[in-house]
Every structure is written in structure tokens, then in C-alpha cells.
């Protein structure tokens, strides 16, 4: 349940460390919350020095971890310990070259296959 002002960790090596969500793509009147697989517009709050992405830049990201439970179709419910996202470009390709952490299988169906293939572990 990610909404504007939510702080998220970044789990790729694009340079950013923390994002703050400012908009959920596809929300009507900003009422809807973002779940795993939704794209958000975020601003970079914290970044590593000397990297292509720097602080207070507005970018898009796809949510990969949420503290709110996520229900899979076979009856399994997954809940992560933190909220995290992967930074993407307009088309949906990740900006970084590596992804950390476990990624849910459901992202593959949502056309984020590149992220799923880079993941060290797929849930």
C-alpha cells in the first residue's frame, strides 16, 4: 500500500538509495494505493555520490516489495519486511544493471521480465 510521501528502498545498482513516492500511476484522484507491480512516480531522496542518478530527480519506479501482504493466485500470501522499488525508464526497462533481493514471480506477467531475469532469487 504505497501512497504519496511513502519512502521506499531501492534494490538495484542505479545509484539511488531512497525514493519518496509522489504519484501512483493509474490512480483515480490519487485515491488508490500502489501494490507490487504498480508503477509510481518518485523523487530521489538519497543517492550515492558520482552516479548518473542524483538527489531530487523525478523518476519512475516499479514496486517490488511491500509490507502489505500480496496474495498469489495459488493461495499463498507474501509479505516483505520493507517497501522497495526498482527504478525504470518510460518503457519498463530497469535503469540499473543488477537487482538485489527477492522478486515475486508475478512481475513476469506484468512485462517486467528483465527485472525478474536479473533477480538473484525469484519468489
Amino acid at each position, binding site marked *: 500500500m504505497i501512497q504519496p510521501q511513502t519512502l521506499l528502498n531501492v534494490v538495484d545498482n542505479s545509484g539511488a538509495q531512497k525514493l519518496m513516492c509522489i504519484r501512483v500511476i493509474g490512480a483515480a484522484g490519487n485515491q488508490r494505493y500502489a501494490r507490487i507491480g504498480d508503477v509510481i512516480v518518485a523523487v530521489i531522496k538519497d543517492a550515492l555520490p558520482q552516479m548518473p542518478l542524483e538527489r531530487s530527480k523525478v523518476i519512475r519506479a516499479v514496486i517490488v516489495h511491500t509490507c502489505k501482504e500480496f496474495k498469489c493466485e495459488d493461495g499463498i500470501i507474501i509479505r516483505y519486511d520493507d517497501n522497495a522499488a526498482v527504478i525504470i525508464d518510460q518503457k519498463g526497462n530497469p535503469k540499473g544493471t543488477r537487482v538485489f533481493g527477492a522478486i515475486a514471480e508475478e512481475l513476469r506477467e506484468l512485462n517486467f521480465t528483465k527485472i525478474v531475469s536479473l533477480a538473484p532469487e525469484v*519468489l
Partner: protein
Amino acid sequence: MQSLLRNVCRAGNRGAAARLLEFAAPVATQPPSSAIKHLRPCGFTPPTGLDQFLCVQNRFISRDGVPASSGFCAKVLMTRGLSTVGTAEVAEDEDDSSSPAVEHPPRIKFKRPDKTARHIMNILNKEAVEKVRTEREIPDVQPGCIIQMRLQVPENKRRESTLKGIVIARRNAGINTTFRLRRLVAGVGVESVFPLYSPNIKEMKILDRKKVRRAKLYYLRDRMNALKK
């Protein structure tokens, strides 16, 4: 049965009563046409299947009373089938309360329709659990167990992944019993809820049992121990 019909009419709860009446229909074959008169005034319109059933009844009803109608009801019982899993119990049920000539299998009391429905659901649940238990060996997972399980994802890939973690909660609900497994995946804590009797769980093994004094170990979320969480 007259008492059943009276209860149905009296109870305001149309939905549940209608459903039960539908499946107790063969039971309610006693009705001489007076019962139908009972139904009409309370404004209860039976579902169409029942309706034509009762109309058929009406035609064949003789004024003699019980023996003739019981004969008819026995014939009708054969034709009217129910398509639930618990057909065995239901058939027993009907046989039991319909005619005195038939022998009595274990009696399921029929005074309150909603209680009977719950009782039947209980039976169905237990049956389903027994069926799964005979097929697979399912160990007794309690909170505090560290288990290792093999899970099959039946999507395109058919992979079998091995998961290892600690059970932090268990919720008992018949066939829907679930347990919550907490593990560390690539540096991030992940909790998953699995149905205990899911066919996707291929194998479960208990590695260790920790002594805990709680049923739900949610306090482990704040403690990132070095040991397997």
C-alpha cells in the same frame, strides 16, 4: 415434515431456509396439500424446482395418508439427486426422516435448518481433511518449528523450490488451515502464508522445534537474529 415447514415460515431468514428447504425437499414429501396451503399464506415462494415438485406431488397425492405418499416419495428420492460431495450424508438424512418403513442410519436431527447446515459443513470439512491426510504425510507444524519444505509452482516452469524458515503462526480452519513461515531471502525478511493442505506443497520436514511460549511469534519481526528466521 410439518415442523420443518413451520420453522421455515416462521424464521425470517428466507435465504438459508430456502436453500435448506430445497435440499430437504424429498424430506418434505409428507405434505398433504394442507402443507402447501401453509406455504402460500406466508408469502414464501419456493424456488421453481421445488414448485413443480410440489405440484407433481399434488397431482399424485391420495387422501389416504402416509403409506401412499411414502411409496411415492421413495420413488422420487431416486430421481432427485443432489450434486454435492456430501451426498452420502444427505441421502441418509432424507431416508431417515422421510418414511418410518426404512431403517434408521445415524440420526441427524432436523429441527433447525441453519444448525443442520453448519453440521453438514463440518462433516464435509472433516472429510476433505481426511482425504488429504491419507494421500500425503503432513507433519504437525506448530509455531516455533523450523521446517524445510519443497514447493512446486505449477505455472509455466514447474520448478520445485526449497524453502526453509521458522513457523511463526498457525491458523486452524479445517481444510483451510494455514501457517505462516518467516525466512530470510537475499537479505530481506519474507513472511509467507501457506495453506497446510495445499497440493503444491510436495514435502515438509521438521528440522528443529524451538520452545516458545506464544501461539503467534510476531515479536520475531523486530528481532533480526543471526539464526534462521
